[in-house]
């Protein structure tokens, strides 16, 4: 067996992926093993886990690819900050400290886990890693054509937006925007102002947008952004992220938009603060979509290539991806299941694969690795009791879901993106309003303004939602939202957002137990609600002990697995 390792780390979610003979077989997020969400250091645990599992050595590894140039990003940011050292003193101090803890130590940290020949080490430009991670999820028939890859990011290697033209094994840079003019950092600044955590709460801001009006859109366009597609510039007097490591928005922003909003104020949906945040969210969402769409339009016009991919942290904004799919002249859109930094490990590994002249990897699966629900573990017997074996499991599952129970699901490999896609999920019947509300507000303690996402068969999706055929693959991993059409039945209303959109998942795997469930219960339960199997703020469950701890904390009694239906012992 020949292996290629891809690694991402140091800034957002660290992860390691493994290619075996050119096929992606494993993807492990460091947070799954540390149990601290968003762990961003060197992914030592994930790497050691894979080394042990596959007996990886210098002899059977062809390449080990890191997802960025360790010095380039740091140098570019310091170069920018040094232009105004007095103003940026706090940020410079932070950047200097980062030098001692950042990716520059990649090689020395790697040596703690694995000794590998230096000529096998690769450092892939950050945005190219993003682009090649998206390429891996492009359907094979489209992969053969020339592709236009858009990367919309916070910042990586000093760049914030990139366009690549990729054909066979050649990638050409079409356009690049440099720090600090960044769509991702702009959106994070508004996230910060609205009281959510940066690099964590952006999806909440997106959900808030539907409750507001884009009152500030024109102001943003005229006073904050200078848009000249594909380039855009931000007036940095409105922001502090280039000067202050603690706060993203400036005093000028506060003077214009009022005092910063506290997250707890947003929980009261009738408050003035909620509306203020919603209007800002709506305006930010609209300008984000307008800029992304104008850059895509420019790129297609410039290159004549209509098949596009979008990746980078901003591509996690499923609303913007839905809007991008509607851009005229786009003939196909691929957004990978893990478009952020964590998934860029796949792009780095793909780079190594393509170096030797091989075609890009093609990922048809959305789950990787094996189940870690170890029923042979002696502790397992102490924690769980078998409720039903595999023979009688289906009938029991139908009964439990039908009666409104919330069930934990743990099947096979794990999802590679941030969204639970039925293998590490909590589910309940989407037409049982009480269960949906209990799961959303009591079990997961989510905000009332964020409805849960549904999972369904393709026939149901096409019947009740406006599905964009150009981006069909993305619905398998919730990359886009879809708008409910007039046929949408009222008993399922609780999964719709206020703007009648939902971040739907189309289940295509006929062997999946939940696919069979939906087929069996057609007409009775056509959609299940699907949310990640974790306590808010924690990583998704990894093994049987995590399952037990999370079930206890969430108050969930049952878990369905490949080996049976279990319940927690008291």
């Amino acid at each position: 067996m020949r292996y290629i390792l891809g690694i991402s780390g140091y800034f957002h979610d660290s992860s390691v992926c493994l290619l075996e003979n050119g096929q992606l077989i494993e993807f492990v997020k460091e947070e799954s093993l540390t149990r601290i969400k968003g762990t961003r250091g060197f992914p030592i645990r994930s790497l050691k886990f894979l080394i042990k599992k596959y007996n990886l050595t210098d002899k059977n590894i062809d390449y080990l690819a890191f997802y960025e140039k360790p010095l380039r990003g740091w140098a570019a940011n310091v170069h920018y900050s040094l232009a105004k050292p007095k103003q940026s003193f706090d940020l410079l101090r932070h950047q200097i400290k980062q030098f001692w803890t950042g990716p520059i130590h990649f090689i020395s940290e790697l040596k703690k886990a694995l000794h590998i020949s230096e000529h096998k080490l690769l450092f892939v430009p950050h945005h190219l890693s993003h682009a090649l991670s998206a390429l891996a999820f492009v359907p094979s028939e489209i992969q053969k054509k020339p592709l236009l890859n858009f990367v919309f990011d916070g910042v990586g290697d000093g760049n914030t937006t990139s366009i690549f033209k990729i054909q066979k094994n050649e990638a050409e840079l079409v356009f690049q925007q440099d720090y600090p003019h960044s769509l991702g950092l702009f959106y994070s600044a508004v996230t910060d102002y609205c009281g959510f955590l940066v690099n964590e709460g952006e999806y909440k801001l997106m959900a808030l947008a539907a409750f507001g009006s884009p009152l500030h859109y024109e102001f943003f366009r005229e006073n904050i952004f200078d848009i000249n597609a594909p380039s855009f510039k931000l007036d940095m007097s409105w922001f502090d992220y280039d000067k202050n490591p603690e706060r993203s928005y400036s005093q000028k922003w506060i003077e214009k938009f009022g005092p910063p909003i506290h997250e707890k104020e947003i929980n009261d949906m009738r408050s003035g603060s909620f509306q203020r945040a919603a209007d800002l969210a709506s305006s930010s969402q609209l300008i984000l979509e307008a800029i992304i769409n104008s850059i895509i339009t420019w790129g297609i016009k410039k290159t004549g290539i209509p098949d596009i991919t979008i990746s980078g942290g901003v591509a996690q904004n499923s609303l913007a991806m839905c809007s991008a799919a509607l851009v005229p002249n786009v003939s196909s859109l691929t957004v990978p299941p893990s478009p952020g930094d964590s998934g860029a490990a796949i792009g780095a590994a793909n780079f190594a694969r393509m170096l030797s002249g091989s075609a890009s990897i093609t990922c048809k699966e959305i789950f990787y690795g094996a189940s870690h629900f170890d029923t042979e573990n002696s502790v397992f017997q102490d924690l769980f009791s078998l409720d039903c074996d595999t023979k009688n499991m289906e009938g029991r599952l139908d009964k439990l879901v039908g009666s409104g129970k919330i069930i934990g699901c743990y099947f096979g490999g794990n999802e590679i993106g941030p969204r639970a896609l039925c293998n590490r999920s909590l589910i309940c019947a989407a037409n049982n309003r009480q269960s949906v509300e209990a799961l959303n507000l009591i079990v997961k303690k989510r905000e009332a303004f964020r409805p849960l996402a549904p999972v369904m068969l393709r026939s149901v999706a096409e019947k009740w939602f406006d599905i964009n055929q150009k981006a069909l693959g993305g619905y398998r991993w919730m990359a886009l939202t879809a708008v409910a059409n007039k046929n949408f039945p009222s008993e399922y209303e609780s999964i719709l957002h206020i703007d009648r959109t939902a971040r739907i998942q189309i289940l295509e795997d006929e062997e999946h137990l939940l696919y069979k469930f939906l087929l069996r219960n057609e007409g009775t339960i056509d959609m299940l609600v699907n949310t990640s199997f974790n306590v808010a703020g924690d990583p998704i469950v990894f093994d049987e002990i995590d399952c037990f701890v999370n079930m206890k904390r969430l108050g969930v009694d049952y878990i369905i697995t490949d080996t049976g239906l279990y319940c927690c012992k008291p």
Partner: protein
Amino acid sequence: MFKSIRVSDLDNSKDGTYLPSRQALDFALAEFSSAIEMLQAAKLVGNKSLAHGFVNHALDEYRHTEFFKRLLSSGSKNELRFDPRLAITFGFVNPDKYLFESNNLERFTAFVAINEASALRLFSKIKPAIDCVSDDLKNEINTIIDEETNHLRDFTKTSEQSTEYSDAFVYEMLLLDEARHASLSNGFLEKIASPRRRKWLRIRYKVGNKLRHFWGSQRSVRSFVDKFISTIVIGLILPFRGVLRFPINKKQNLISMQNGKFLL
């Protein structure tokens, strides 16, 4: 909680006594880190009854984390937010090597026993602030349990629905949990270590904690040293700003060995 923290004075204002928000954050992070350490210990210990005990301990610590998170978000002038990654940044936990991995069972148990006992003393110190915040939160609490005292013992064994209990009640349970953790760890330590060894371990961890807290309390000194060194470093690299910019070659095929070889 067996991650030690230093408690400064409480905020006394006209409205009542408050736990400074940074302190509430520290408590939440210390509880969270303790939960993580216990969870990792449960996965590694290889003894099913110990593993079960560690899992239950982790569940308690997670519940305490939620309590301090609510306390943190209840502060009126509070701008601090709980972010689990801060547990790493502030040094509460080192995910590269958890306590159970860097210590044997004896040392791990001693560490837990000694620090659980100190945690009890810390919680007693902050009691006035808990009482005050609890009054403020009264209207937000939906369910008041009638027979609180009778449920205490049961509740320390389960973790469900913790938010339905009043803050004062959760705090009382938290004290009970900590006392139970300290007594369990002490009992286990007595089984596995000699009295002389126990004495040495106690001195070692107590002195270690005191030294760490002393250094932690010297914020102004640390800030001065930090700024001083940073100013020198910035001054030294400023003349070389120009060499920190690396243009990318737009013409070449980016999927090339040359493009993958260098750190820059």
